[in-house]
């Protein structure tokens, strides 16, 4: 199976690899997936007082598409408000990276990681977690 150029680009030069201070109340962390399934994503966001994401970092255990999906997610998150970030849809990632059907779960995982990171931040700051109504197919 051939990878799209964008997947190869993100895989070869992953953006924003790293770790933010999990203990900081300004940092939200999302850890999704499972080692048994062959992919685990950890996505972290740093949020300022205006609820704008100023920094995002990731680390991913998984295939090239999983790594590319999370790398792309960190790029998209920077500069967005947490409300706008909540609207990122996995199909946007599928489209941008031209993921084939067998790799759609990688984009789902990235969306889940974004939501988990935002909710972690919200809960830390006394806000309610937002439960996603979305059903993935």
């Amino acid at each position, binding site marked *: *199976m051939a*990878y799209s150029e964008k997947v190869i680009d993100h*895989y070869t030069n*992953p953006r924003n*690899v790293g*770790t933010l201070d999990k203990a900081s109340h300004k940092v939200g962390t999302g*850890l*999704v*997936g*499972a*080692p*048994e*399934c*062959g*992919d*685990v*994503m*950890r996505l972290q966001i740093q949020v300022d007082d205006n609820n704008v994401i100023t920094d995002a970092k990731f*680390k*991913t*255990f*998984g*295939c*090239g598409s*999983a*790594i590319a999906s999370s790398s792309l997610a960190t790029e998209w998150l920077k500069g967005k408000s947490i409300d706008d970030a909540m609207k990122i849809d996995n199909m946007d990632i599928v489209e941008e990276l031209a993921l084939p059907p*067998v790799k759609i*779960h990688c984009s*789902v*995982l990235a969306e*889940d990681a974004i939501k988990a990171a935002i909710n972690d931040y919200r809960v830390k700051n006394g806000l309610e977690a937002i439960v996603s109504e979305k059903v993935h197919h």
Partner: protein
Amino acid sequence: MNIPVYLDNNATTPMDPSVLEAMLPYFVEKFGNAASRNHPFGWVAEEAVDYAREQVAKLIGASEKEIIFTSGATESDNLAIKGVFEMYHEKGNHIITTVTEHKAVLDACKHVEKLGGKVTYLPVKEDGLVDLAELEAAMTPETILVSIMYGNNEIGVVQPVKEISAIAHKHGALFMTDAVQAVGKIPVDVNADGIDLLALSAHKIYGPKGVGALYVRRKGPRVKVTAQMDGGGHERGMRSGTLNVPGIVGLGKACELCMQEMESEAIRLSALRDKLQAELTVLEESYVNGNQEHRLPHVANISFKYVEGEGLMMAMKDLAVSSGSACTSASLEPSYVLKSLGLSDDLAHSSIRFGLGRFTTEEEVDYAIEVTKKSVTHLRELSPLWEMFKEGIDLDSIEWAEH
């Protein structure tokens, strides 16, 4: 050195140029049908097939009359298992195999089950070998066939074939082996090993794709299989269809070359494999899968923990290897062979199979070592699991959100 480097010789091998040379006259010039008994075109073809039959038989210590040419090992496995089941169903309906067999054997067994047969799928030990006591215990008066592979395609372990065949025979069953990975790589002798049926393939031994053979014992006992392909009654009535003369000539030549080179190649390849393995297990948290004593000389299957196999292969884009990770399949299930060794899913997802071959050079192995080390290190820097491991977090203590 040619880039990319090919280290996937358990999947297929490049054809030896002298095999191609032997085949070439049989396409245009000597195109006859080996079954045409009444003119020189047929005689020339028949003579070539007979010669190839001797070459194949010699490699496995058989008689040329015991070789049935097929389209490959998948067909040979199907013919052996379904053919024995149909031929001997009055004697019994039970077949024993193992969970680590090739799909051609497993699926042929599943087919037999649909026809009313009973199949026991023996588990294997942690090192990939069959537990002989378990085999003995599984034998019943109804058992007509024990089908256990010679060398495993994913981890390279070599089963105790002599002991297995002795158990099968003691209980009056036939012994069949899928020897695709072993033939031409290590000495295989149907008489010394007590083999009644044996499947082999040309393209794993530097021959062409689309041709293989089934060895069917003719003496002590005389074994018969019911044909699975009906037609002109070729191959002693066991496999109809016009013989693939150029392919068969290629298979014969490939066997002859293996006969000449096997001994020295086994020494050369196991030395290269051991070097590769020694260098790569210097990496922290890397594990060799399968028994390391009883195995083929040219395979190493290594798990690099906290790195996912498919992601790793993408990093090693100039190295052609294969992985037990099944990330590309819809099921997300990693290799059933690795799982049956009791490997956790994450280790199975982290495995890479390195398969060396006749044309593998030391320079290529050195390149593979360098690229693998670099890629594993790079991907671990990207891996949250590696970071957690380094921080001393027990990954089993985390409640993972399965998806």
